[in-house]
Structure formats: structure tokens, C-alpha cells
């Protein structure tokens, strides 16, 4: 076996020490009749060179990286500073377990503590956890948390929330007697205030909206939060494009009680959808209902500052079925990457990156809506993505762009049958003016 560190002689000595003749003797406790009497039907073993070639060939079968792409919709292509890859690949960060032994885990623990602080600063809330799996389960956890906090069974979910997040909420609550009611969006792409008013009552645990929402439109978080609070419901804000918090007012400052979502934008590669970085922040009075691990500050026997995992009574190791969540392994290494990313950018760098996203999206919106037949679907203010409507089905437009080496956006008809001939177009700081202009020209040709 590759990676076996025992010599021939080691194995002999160990078998002798145990007092057996071969490793087969170790499995006597397994009933003979169920034991596998054949070799597994697996390929390999592959030597390193063979494996490298195999995986490089698989990667080469992905044509996508050779395309100019404007996909967003919950996964964003942003600059990753070199130091993120460099530092996060250190074995001391990659290869430890969860920091259960704080004396030999201060590196990981201090990083978590810094991460929690950064999340609080960005969201404008009091406390944050050490991470959740990703944005969609974060939203589902927030719904469960709102339920626990209010003891109410109904939750209002904006239809402009990422459709996959909505699906995951549905999956999570369906066995628990909870109900999710969808709040439609209005013509400007934001939550329909009138419809919301009609749905909101004292049985509602919370309102879940996303801002910028799935259409890239910035919601009026303040108004939504006030509406929720008017019924003693919680305002849950999902942020799927965490970079927006570099420019937009913190949701917490606008009344959000729980902010959750996805921080993939902070130093994580697209990597076909994972691993990403769920996060959650909330007001401090909700701390005992917060799901997931948290690190806290304390002192050692000599009075020196140190960090530990704390408030474990919320977790399954102690509370078992009464835990606030079943999450155990989280996304620690992704949180480390986000921490390095944010500390590398710093305040001015984060603002600059967010600002460039908004500027480039605004430019792209100008360029693309100048193409005859292309219409901006929603008037609401965009951050770095927006919905365009075309004079023909997106599938046709998409196909035409693809022949020019471009993936122009994400078609919306599947998830939103009401949005015919539409696509979501995302523009980040990595798109150059040339790229945007190229899309404009290609679109013009595609629609000719």
C-alpha cells in the first residue's frame, strides 16, 4: 500500500508482539459468512505519475475554464491573493483535527476567533459562529433557529432567495411540522411589500430575504426588518455574495437579527460548488440558540490569553438530540482562507474590490442593454449581477454565445418559469473592459 510506513520487519515484530501470525487473524471477530471473499472491483493502484496524468486528463475534459464566463448566482469568481493559497496550505493548518485540545491548537483557535470577529464586523452583528457547511444549509439553520427562538411554525421566505436555498429550507423543515410560505417579488425585483404585509402575522417566526438577492438586486433590508419586528418576528438576512458587505450597509445595522449565507467569495475557488463557507451571525441574546461551533477567549493558569471552543452545551457531544444543530465537522479550513483573504485585503482593499464589482456590473449593464432587443429585467439597484431579458429563448442566445467561447449567464426559466427569455449575468473585478465589450459584441451578433 502506498503511504504504508511499516517496514517488512516492523510488521513481523508487531504481529509477534500481538501474538498472531498474520493480519488476517485480526479479523476473527467478523463472521466468516459476511466477509468479502474476493478482491474489490476497483482500478489501480496508480503510481503518482499515473494518477497525475489521469486527473489532468479529467480536468482537460472540462471545457469550461477555456470559456469567458459571466456566471454567478451563488458562486463567484474573485481574485484570490497568492498568500491565501500559500498560507492555508501549510500542514499545520491543513492536517489537524477540530481543536479539542486547545493547548496545541491555538493557531486554529485564534484564527476562528478572528474569523468570528470579521463576520461580526461585516454583518454588523454581535456574535458569529465558526462556520456552517455552506449558504443553503445556513439559511435552513437560520429558519430552524428562528423557530426555536419564537416557537412559531411558519416562516416567510422571499421568492428572490436563491432557489437552491429555498429548496434546502424545504428539505430541512418538512419533517418538523414547519411551514415555509413564499413571498413574491415585485416588478423591481425586490420583495413585494404589499404581498408581504398580507402574509405577515403573529404566527410567523421570521422573514427570510436575501440581499443582494438572487437577481442581484439590493433589498430594502431596513423596511423588511421593521416589518418583521412589527410582528415580533425575526429578520433573517441571507448574504450569498459576501463581498457586497464591503460596500453596502451592514445588514445588522439595518435591523437584521440573524445574518447567514455564503462566504465563498472570500478566497475560495469555485471548485464546482464546494467546499464553500457557510456563516452565521446574530444578536448576542440569541447565543444559546446559535448552531455550530464557537471559539471564545479565556486565560490559562498563568493568566495568559488563550482561546477555546466554548458553549459546547449547545452541541451534540453534550446535548445529543437537544443540540441546536447536528453539525459537527464544519468548514474550518475555508474559514481560515476567508480570514487570510480579508486580512490581506484590509478595509481599503475590500471596499475597492466591492466597488470595482459594482462599477464593472454597472458598465456591463450599460453595454449589454445597449444591444438592440436586450432589456434590463428589474429596475432595483444591482451589486455585481443583474437579470437581462432577451427577444428569444435563453437557450438560443446561450448556444450562440457558446460558439464564441462565452458562457454569458445563468438561464432563469428552470427555477423561475415566470422569467422567460431571461438570464442572470454576473460581472466581478476579474472581468476586464475587453471581456465585457466582447460579450456585448457577441450578444449583438447572437441577436442579429
Amino acid at each position: 500500500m502506498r503511504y504504508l510506513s511499516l517496514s517488512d520487519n516492523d510488521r513481523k515484530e508487531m504481529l509477534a508482539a500481538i501474538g498472531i501470525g498474520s493480519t488476517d487473524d485480526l479479523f476473527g471477530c467478523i463472521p466468516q459468512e459476511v466477509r468479502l471473499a474476493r478482491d474489490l472491483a476497483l482500478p489501480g493502484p496508480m503510481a503518482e505519475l499515473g494518477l497525475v496524468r489521469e486527473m489532468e486528463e479529467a480536468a482537460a475534459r472540462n471545457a469550461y475554464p477555456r470559456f469567458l464566463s459571466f456566471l454567478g448566482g451563488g458562486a463567484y469568481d474573485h481574485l484570490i491573493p497568492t498568500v491565501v493559497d500559500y498560507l492555508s496550505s501549510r500542514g499545520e493548518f491543513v492536517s489537524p483535527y477540530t481543536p479539542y485540545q486547545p493547548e496545541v491548537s491555538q493557531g486554529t483557535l485564534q484564527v476562528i476567533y478572528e474569523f468570528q470577529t470579521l463576520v461580526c464586523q461585516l454583518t454588523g452583528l454581535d456574535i458569529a459562529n465558526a462556520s456552517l457547511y455552506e449558504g443553503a444549509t445556513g439559511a435552513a439553520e437560520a429558519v430552524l433557529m428562528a423557530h426555536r427562538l419564537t416557537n412559531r411554525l411558519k416562516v416567510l421566505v422571499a421568492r428572490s432567495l436563491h432557489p437552491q436555498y429555498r429548496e434546502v429550507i424545504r428539505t430541512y423543515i418538512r419533517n418538523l411540522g414547519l411551514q415555509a410560505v413564499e413571498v413574491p417579488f415585485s416588478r423591481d425585483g425586490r420583495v413585494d411589500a404589499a404581498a408581504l404585509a398580507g402574509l405577515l402575522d403573529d404566527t410567523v417566526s421570521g422573514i427570510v430575504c436575501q440581499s443582494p438577492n438572487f437577481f442581484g438586486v439590493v433589498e430594502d433590508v431596513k423596511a423588511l426588518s421593521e416589518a418583521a419586528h412589527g410582528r415580533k418576528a425575526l429578520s433573517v438576512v441571507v448574504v450569498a455574495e459576501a463581498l457586497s458587505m464591503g460596500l453596502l450597509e451592514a445588514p445588522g445595522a439595518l435591523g437584521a437579527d440573524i445574518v447567514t449565507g455564503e462566504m465563498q467569495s472570500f478566497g475560495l475557488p469555485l471548485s464546482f460548488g464546494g467546499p464553500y463557507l457557510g456563516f452565521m451571525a446574530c444578536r448576542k441574546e440569541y447565543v444559546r440558540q446559535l448552531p455550530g461551533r464557537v471559539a471564545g477567549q479565556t486565560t490559562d493558569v498563568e493568566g495568559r490569553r488563550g482561546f477555546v471552543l466554548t458553549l459546547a452545551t449547545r452541541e451534540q457531544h453534550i446535548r445529543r438530540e437537544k443540540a441546536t444543530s447536528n453539525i459537527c465537522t464544519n468548514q474550518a479550513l475555508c474559514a481560515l482562507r476567508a480570514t487570510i483573504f480579508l486580512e490581506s485585503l484590509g478595509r481599503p482593499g475590500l471596499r475597492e474590490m466591492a466597488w470595482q464589482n459594482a462599477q464593472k456590473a454597472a458598465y456591463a449593464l450599460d453595454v449589454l442593454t445597449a444591444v438592440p432587443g436586450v432589456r434590463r429585467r428589474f429596475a432595483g439597484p444591482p451589486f455585481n449581477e443583474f437579470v437581462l431579458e432577451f427577444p428569444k429563448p435563453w437557450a438560443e442566445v446561450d448556444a450562440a454565445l457558446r460558439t464564441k467561447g462565452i458562457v454569458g449567464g445563468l438561464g432563469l426559466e428552470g427555477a423561475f418559469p415566470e422569467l422567460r427569455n431571461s438570464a442572470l449575468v454576473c460581472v466581478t473585478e476579474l472581468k476586464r473592459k475587453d471581456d465585457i465589450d466582447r460579450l456585448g459584441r457577441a450578444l449583438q451578433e447572437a441577436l442579429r
Partner: protein
Amino acid sequence: MIKEIREPLVFEISAPGKKASLLPPLDVPETKGLLDGVALRRDIDGFPEVAEPEVVRHFTRLSQKNYCVDLGLYPLGSCTMKYNPKVNERLSALPGLAATHPEAPVDLVQGNLSLLKRLEGYLSEIAGMDAFTLQPAAGAHGELTGMMIIRAALEDRGDPRKYVLIPDSAHGTNPSSAHICGYTVKEIKSNEDGMIDIASLEKEMAADVAALMVTNPNTLGVFESDICRAAEIVHARGGLVYMDGANMNALTGIVRPGDMGVDVLHINLHKTFSTPHGGGGPGSGPVGVQKALAAYLPVPVIEEKGGRFSVAFDRPKTIGRVRSFYGNFSVIVRALCYILSLGPKGVREIAEYAVLNANYIRKSLEQDYHLKYTASSMHECVFSDKFQKEHGVTNLDIAKRLIDYGLHPPTMSFPLIVHGALMIEPTETESKRDLDLFIAAMKAIAREAKEEPETLKSAPHVTYVRRLDEVAAAKTPVLRWEKRG
């Protein structure tokens, strides 16, 4: 005498004027009045401003305050801390993989889909199951997914039922996952061998019981030799068997859960298949099912026809989505690489040497530490501090003292059925030298417990921090840095 430098929080070294230079200037005409009417933030209070050299030092210094597998034995029981091959790190980050967007048209990501499909197939073969989903993000997420599948299937038969049976030795995520799935947990006691008591199972397995959740080998490292009988009992009463596959490292190539009556299981790629733990994640907890349950798997489901891969969403019986996109893809790629590197013989050797190493430790320490359950051990062994308690020394003291010896402690206080537990799992990639260093340290500590118990109680002695006040941390939680003044 020593003036160690304490690493400050980044916020404490932050100051205006220190900045990175990452982005070229904006290259499009600037739009004035951008986001007019939207609430923009003026500042991010306390947000760090540091220079790149400081960032590099900060994290390099912090990293050195961690113990890790790359530095030595990390014998956390139930956690399977094995060597994480570096080539798998590199391959999972290949630009052709890492740069793919999860919403990319399927035609443009055939490579990715082929990798996912391959791992589903290999895991099915290894676990003896018919179908796998790779979506769950970790073990607990797999448990939840698996229990949802069970619930959906029973619901389909007319009644989701009410209870789930879980042995008292189970990991805390099992009851928690069952609970989030809408079930009430009934604990079943282990027998004197630490195994499921078949008699209690017979008694508890009523018509309102949906499933038995079993871990095999269980958290004592003991193979549940009556597993087939247990499955029969559960099946006979219309229930299903869920297996927590966290301990698959003991079984690969030796015996397949699917051949022992297991209906649903999850596997931790971050344990059995060598993907790194990263200080707490990310993981990946694929769920395997028997044919009859395949229809309930979460969407999306990857399908292959004539070498072309596609993604199916329209599966009427699916439990739905359990997360966004396709799962922790780069973790999945690493696990696939591990299997390909090892091949059929090597995958079997995972179990052989994991069990050999555990038994070597057990044998070497049997005289020094108490073994509550003496059934034969698989990939881990669970001692207790019973002998040392006589001198006032607990498993915590033993654990902390191991740190002084330059080693990582075993898992403590789990499983709950062993008081003062020391749960030791070495894994298959350890060298005899590292095993012997651990054994020697444990023996020395057993001696010290008798001769100088105070040394243990005040351990560790030279770490960057010594014992931390966990009670204070929980009592008055300080969960974030805050600007003074």
C-alpha cells in the same frame, strides 16, 4: 528566563496606511451615483489594515502553535487522523477543476461529472451498496440525509413511524440528526461486551420504530458481531438499518456493510479516505443506499449514458436538495485520488494495517491502562483512567501530559459508556517509530501517575498556553474582539 513573543490579534496590529495592492485601477468608465438610494456603509468598524508581510508572519506564527498529522501521531479515536497525501491536495486544486463554476453547462464540465460518477461507483463497491450521493458536507450531514431517506421511504409505505433506536455508545450526532429528521430517540444499552444487546433490541424494536442507527465497528472499536441478526430483527418489524460509517477504516475490503443488512450508510471521506480535516473541516459524508431506496436520494443525481454525463433533478421521490450544488467537490476529488492510488489490494490494506496498529498499541498498553471492554479491537481501542484514578489522576491529566511529550492526546470522554475514556486510533499510515514513541510516553505517564501525580495535574508545562479556563470561557463568553474605548 524565556521571553516568548505572544502573537497579537490582527486587530491589535492594524493601523491606517498599511495596505495590500491587489487590484489594478478600474478599467471601465466610472459610473457616478452608483447604487444611488441604497444604504452604503461608511466604514467597517475595527476592520483590520495590515501589510502583506505582517499577514504572512501572523499566520506562519499561528500555524506553528498547532499540532498536526504532518508533525506526528494524532491518535484521536473515531477521527481517523491519517496521512493526507500531498499529491491529492495538488490534484484537487488543478486549475481545470478548481476554476469550474457549479452552474456551468453540463457539456462544459464532463470531466467533473465523470469524477463524481466514478467515486459513487467505487464507494458503492467498497460499501456493498447500490447507489451513492456525494452531496453531504460531512458525517452529520450524511446522517441527516440518510435518515431523511429512511423517513421518506417509510412515509411512502404509509407511515414514517416515530422512533429511532440508537445505542448508548453512539456519537452525539446520531441522536441529533435523527431528531432534526423529526424522530424521537430511544437509547439502547450496550451489553457487557460493549455491543448492542440483542435482547433489548428485540424488545425495543416495535412497529413504531423507524430505524436502528448503528456504528460498526462501534465507538469502542468493537465489531458488532451480531449485526446480521440485528438487521434481521429490524427488517422483520418493518424498520430499516442505518449505519454510521465513521469507522469504515476497519472494514475496507474486508467486509461490506451492504452485505450485513445495512440499508443506508454514510462514509466520512475525511476519515476513511484521507482527506484532510483542516482543523475542523471541510469534510464530505457521502450516503449509500440499497436499490430500493435509490429513488429517495437527494437531487441533483448524476446520470451517464454512452459516456456522456448529465444531471437529473426530476426525481419524484427525492427528499429534495440537502445543500447547494454538488457537494464538497474538491474533497471528493481527493478521496477518489486516494482510492486510485491504493487500488483493490491497497484499500484492503487500509483496514489491515489500521487494525494491526491499533492492536499493537492495545497489546503494548494493556498492563498500564484499564480496558473496560475486552472484546477484540478493530481500528481503535478504548482505555480508561481507572488505574490512574487511584492516584487522583484523570484522563484529562493523562491527555495534557502527553502534550509535554510532544504528542497529541487521544479522544477523551467518549464513548460515554466508558468513564474516563482514552480512545486511541492510530490509522494505517503510522510508522512503528511513531507508535513506539506514543507507547513509551503512555507507559512513562502511567509511571508518573503513581510517582509524581502532580506533574500530570499541572500539565502541560511548556506549551504556548497552559491549561485554559474553559469554565470561565463558557460562563462569560467573549466570542469576538472589540475595539476598546
